[in-house]
């Protein structure tokens, strides 16, 4: 009976240890907030050029992460890229003339969307679309413009 009790205790310890490791992973190592990503609401924005933006990229408000990009597609009517993003449900006060810009974090970092609130009274709701956008900066374009302005001085 004694040895059976010991085995039971050790097996119990093993299972508890495994589950504890899973909880540590959930709370400490990963961000469980992503599980709640099915909450919130979706808005879309049209860009002339999304550059290297990828699905699951961050959407920020003054640098604070408030949502994620859920999909990028191409609209054949307007010849523009359509980016849909899901915002956290507590961010429900963004004015309708909010501007969306694509920036790069750091010199070689990944691209993300930055929102800048406007001044309208109407707020963005599920399914609304942002009209004021600023496309990603493509390095080749910048270099090309720079070359033109440098050479035209002569």
């Amino acid at each position, binding site marked *: 009976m004694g040895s059976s009790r010991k085995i*039971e205790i050790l*097996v119990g310890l093993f299972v508890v240890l495994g589950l504890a*490791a899973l909880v540590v*992973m*959930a709370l400490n*190592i990963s961000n469980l907030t992503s599980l709640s990503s099915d909450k919130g609401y979706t808005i879309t924005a049209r860009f002339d050029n999304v550059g290297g933006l990828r699905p699951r990229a961050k959407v920020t408000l003054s640098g604070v992460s408030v949502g994620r990009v859920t999909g990028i597609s191409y609209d054949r009517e307007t010849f523009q890229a359509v980016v849909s993003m899901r915002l956290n449900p507590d961010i429900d006060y963004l004015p309708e003339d909010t501007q969306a810009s694509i920036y790069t974090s750091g010199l070689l970092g990944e691209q993300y969307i930055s929102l800048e609130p406007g001044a309208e009274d109407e707020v963005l709701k599920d399914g609304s679309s942002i009209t004021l956008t600023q496309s990603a900066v493509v390095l080749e374009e910048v270099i090309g413009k720079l070359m033109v302005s440098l050479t035209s001085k002569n």
Partner: protein
Amino acid sequence: MLDTLQRIGAFTLDTLSSLGRASLFLVQVIAGIKSTLLRPRLLLRELYSVGVLSLLIIIFSAIFVGMVLSLLGYVTLVDFGAESSLGVLVSLSLIRELGPVLSALLFSGRAGSALTAEIGLMKATEQLASMEMMAVDPIHRIVTPRFLAGCISLPLLSVIFMSLGIYAGYLVGSVWLGVDEGSFWSQMQSKVEFGYDVINGVIKSMVFAFVVTWIAVFQGYNAMPTSEGVSRATTNSVVYSALAVLALDFILTAIMFVK
């Protein structure tokens, strides 16, 4: 020419028939799950010998793998001034890849070989046959509890491997090499997603657990009842498990993590 063709044909038929036997065996094993669950004491004993006794090697390797990963990652990343991403590197490689794969390989060496040898020896000493004489189904009584214990233990061991490895990586990276503690954890938390990375890593280790234990118990049950046959079955069990885990890992990674 004909001899070569005949050899290829014989090999194919042989492989097919052993695959068929393994599948039928699996069906019988799974059919015994209900009677095993009704007698949890058998399962408990196997959980002890398969899971608890594997803990030591898993803990030990997790700590050293995490430390080495952190050290090498630091040496590479510091050249680009990107050592704050060390946490992401260590955690993602452990969760997606090294945790499930290494613990499956260690598990097949530590527990899978023991299962094969145990069942093979029971067959060689005719314990299985005598059970059948007493109208006890040896598959339900002997094999199913071991199979189930393996399928439960390995995912738990993998999760322990992952989190211990990450903490060991943190010890080397932050405490010893001086990577900023805040960016180590915060970058890790922002890049690792529970629903995507962790869940897929755990699913991977569940698949490995199933395959490794299946191979182990089948090799044992199918062993030639001689001392040479048991030793060959034990070798086969470890070799086939390693090959199956590595090949499956490629397929699973391609399905899960490549968009």
